[in-house]
């Protein structure tokens, strides 16, 4: 087969089931995609400190390789960043492999235990070594393990994000690189939507997460899984397969769905990613940015503006499911008023706990709330006048 790019007839790389490339052109192309993604957005000044987060999976292994290649170049194409590596420790084998990989490239990697999420102090661990396990902190993971699989996966992503930012601050980095690829971003867009996080997709799936002062950047967002596999094969990289997600969850289901659909409709992933690029927050919510931010994910809280939303409708369903009809039954026009009186007792903690409670105490409850479809931690600001609005209009 003839390479599409250079007409070399030794093409071994077949992408999208129709395009052939030779190895050299393919590697160049992948490098270019990575560089273009960073370059286009003109984020960095020269020699910026960047925290590169390595999970040990395929994506992060390739990211490590791309960065080390970029730094080696001596011409104007040299990647001018100062990378510092971080691995969140969850599994012995993987952590050791990540350390080994980084040593190969003469990079320094800090390995941090995932349980560090709960600790209030910040201890920078010794570089290039496994952290000592603190007996007390290990409970964290157990607490989260009690969550339903979907909520656990969701929480796990938020924990990782918090830890990335925490250590970026310690290590004086203004930017963070993570290794999500197009396929994983397409899946997380659908997962976000399925979890009620539709208003957060801009930060969760886009090129840059703007919620904190420290920006999370996804320089591999244009690289597909297919390309990763070829890259790994050609560069003979050593991969340790593992999977963080808990089974029987929406995230895993959606992952499988997206890859199945991609087989029959090859444009699925790119379409979904293009859709993600066009989505933002509802504009009426964008204004009240000032101090209403979720403590866990730093998203702007969606303050209800009087419009009926699915969240209110769900709450109402819970209320009526607990009421005896006899209390209100016949021809009572004030049904909404009665329900509204009960409304504030329904979620006593949703406004207070979700956003103000100290981390240690709130965790279990937050989990419960999360699974109750109240993902966005919306405080109850309902104005009593507003509730009766429809009713009044009916009467007048």
């Amino acid at each position, binding site marked *: 087969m003839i390479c599409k790019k250079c007409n070399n007839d030794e093409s071994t790389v077949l992408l999208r089931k129709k395009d052939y490339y030779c190895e050299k052109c393919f590697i160049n192309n992948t490098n270019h995609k990575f560089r273009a993604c960073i370059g286009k957005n003109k984020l960095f000044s020269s020699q910026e400190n960047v925290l590169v987060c390595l999970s040990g999976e395929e994506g992060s292994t390739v990211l490590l390789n791309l960065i080390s290649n970029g730094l080696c170049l001596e011409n104007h194409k040299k990647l001018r960043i100062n990378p510092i590596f971080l691995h969140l420790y969850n599994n012995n084998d993987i952590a050791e492999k990540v350390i080994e990989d980084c040593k190969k490239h003469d990079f320094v990697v800090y390995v941090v235990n995932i349980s560090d999420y709960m600790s209030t102090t910040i201890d920078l661990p010794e570089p290039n070594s496994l952290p000592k396990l603190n007996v007390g902190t290990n409970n964290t993971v157990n607490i989260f393990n009690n969550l339903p699989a*979907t909520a656990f996966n969701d929480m796990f992503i938020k924990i990782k994000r918090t830890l990335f930012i925490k250590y970026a601050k310690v290590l004086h980095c203004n930017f963070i690189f993570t290794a999500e690829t197009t396929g994983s971003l397409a899946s997380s*867009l*659908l997962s*976000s*939507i*399925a*979890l*009620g*996080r*539709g*208003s957060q*997709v801009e930060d969760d799936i886009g090129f840059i997460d703007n919620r904190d002062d420290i920006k999370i950047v996804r320089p591999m967002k244009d690289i597909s899984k297919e390309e990763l596999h070829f890259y790994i094969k050609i560069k003979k990289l050593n991969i340790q397969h593992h999977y963080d997600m808990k089974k029987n969850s*929406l995230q895993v*289901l*959606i992952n499988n769905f997206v890859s199945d*659909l991609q087989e029959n409709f090859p444009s*699925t992933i790119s*379409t*979904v990613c293009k*859709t993600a690029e*066009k*989505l*933002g*927050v*509802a*504009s009426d*919510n964008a204004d009240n940015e000032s101090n209403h931010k979720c403590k866990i994910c730093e998203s702007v809280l*969606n303050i209800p503006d009087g419009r*009926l*939303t*699915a*969240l*209110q*409708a*769900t709450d*109402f*369903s*819970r209320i*009526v*499911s*607990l*009421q*005896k*009809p*006899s209390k*209100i039954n016949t*021809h009572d*026009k004030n*049904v*909404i008023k009665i*329900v509204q009186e009960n409304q504030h007792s329904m979620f006593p903690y949703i406004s207070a706990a979700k956003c103000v409670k100290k981390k240690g105490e709130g965790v279990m409850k937050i989990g419960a709330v999360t*699974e109750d*479809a109240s*993902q*966005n931690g919306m405080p109850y600001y309902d104005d009593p006048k507003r*509730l009766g609005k*429809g009713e009044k*209009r*009916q*009467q007048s």
Partner: protein
Amino acid sequence: MPVPCRTGCGNNAVLKRPKTGDALCKECFYWAFETEIHYTITKGELFNKGDSVAIAASGGKDSTVLAYILKTLNTRYDYGLNLMLLSIDEGITGYRDDSLETVKQNRDDYEMPLKILSYKDLYGWTMDEIVAQIGRKNNCTFCGVFRRQALDRGAALLDVKCIATGHNADDIAETVLMNVLRGDIARLKRCTAISTGSEGTIPRVKPLKYTYEKEIVMYAHYKKLVYFSTECVFAPNAYRGHARALLKDMERIRPTCIMDIIYSGETMSVKEQVSLPSQRICSRCNFVSSQEVCKACVLLEGLNKGLPKLGIGKTSKAKKMLEAYNARQMQENSLEQATDLEDTSKSIKDNIKDASNKCNSKNCCSGKCKSDASKQQNGNAKINKLLEQYGLDESPSSQKLNGDLSDDECSGGCGNSSSMPIGF
């Protein structure tokens, strides 16, 4: 072991609500179900007192429950609505003919006036005939586009303030997923709105927006409502099926995800820099459209010209098709004899086969479409550029030409236009 009703009313529970997980007895479930819809209607400000409302009735569970509920709530809370049923007969044998019987039953049971409009009357084509043309793929495009407009026409005929449709929470969540998968950003933006309709059009409202499909089925079951429960015979090939399958799997793992998806749809919005098509009025039929000419008119034009794929896929393709069509016509008119014998011998067999196939469509086309076209023409002064250039239905004579030409279309579709005269 019997479970007591969650409300503490003393009865035993008969079901566990999919939406909240609470076990309720029959009476409490009825009450909760009805009150929720009342809440949606009042909080969402769907109706004004004294409005005439058309209920889009298909005879299925959703519209049957909707009709029943609206009638109940209208009496219980004194909405003062004037309710009527509006049905569209797509002409699908083995599906719609049976379901319309159910609608007639509803009419008698709920004492509401019923208006039935058929595709045959409105467009000159039944879905059966359309499927014979277009095949099993893409036929939902025709049905959906035509029904949307047919409802508007029906509502205008009935002179109602709004149309209430039976879309439930599952439908809406499914649509959100489908629009994301297809990248249809404009629809994604408006598909979660509880009430849609811009200036000058008849708004549609979805009182069952937050009601789970499963609860609707249970409600209809316990209330012993009569409804029709067969899947459309043409539906299985639709792309929507993928989104539906995903949603069903997701619901099994986490039932609340349906409401979460709707919430996502409600809270996200399209970035300002993204350009969206604006809604306007079709210059041909005066109904809502996002283009100069609405999809229904394009699809219909395609059917009438024997180019059923005209409205499917990219508009650039449609332009090409029309150009090819036009070129063929010119060729006919100039009486240029084909000299291209090489091609002819190759495809002559196909042409004969196609010509015999097309005879049916030719008959139906020249007959029904003529009346339809003249009807449409009366209402319109402006005719769109695209169709102006190629519009054959402007005068009876050209309509005839259209019918005569439909043989040629198909040979053209096979890739050889000049061969036809020789084929005969």
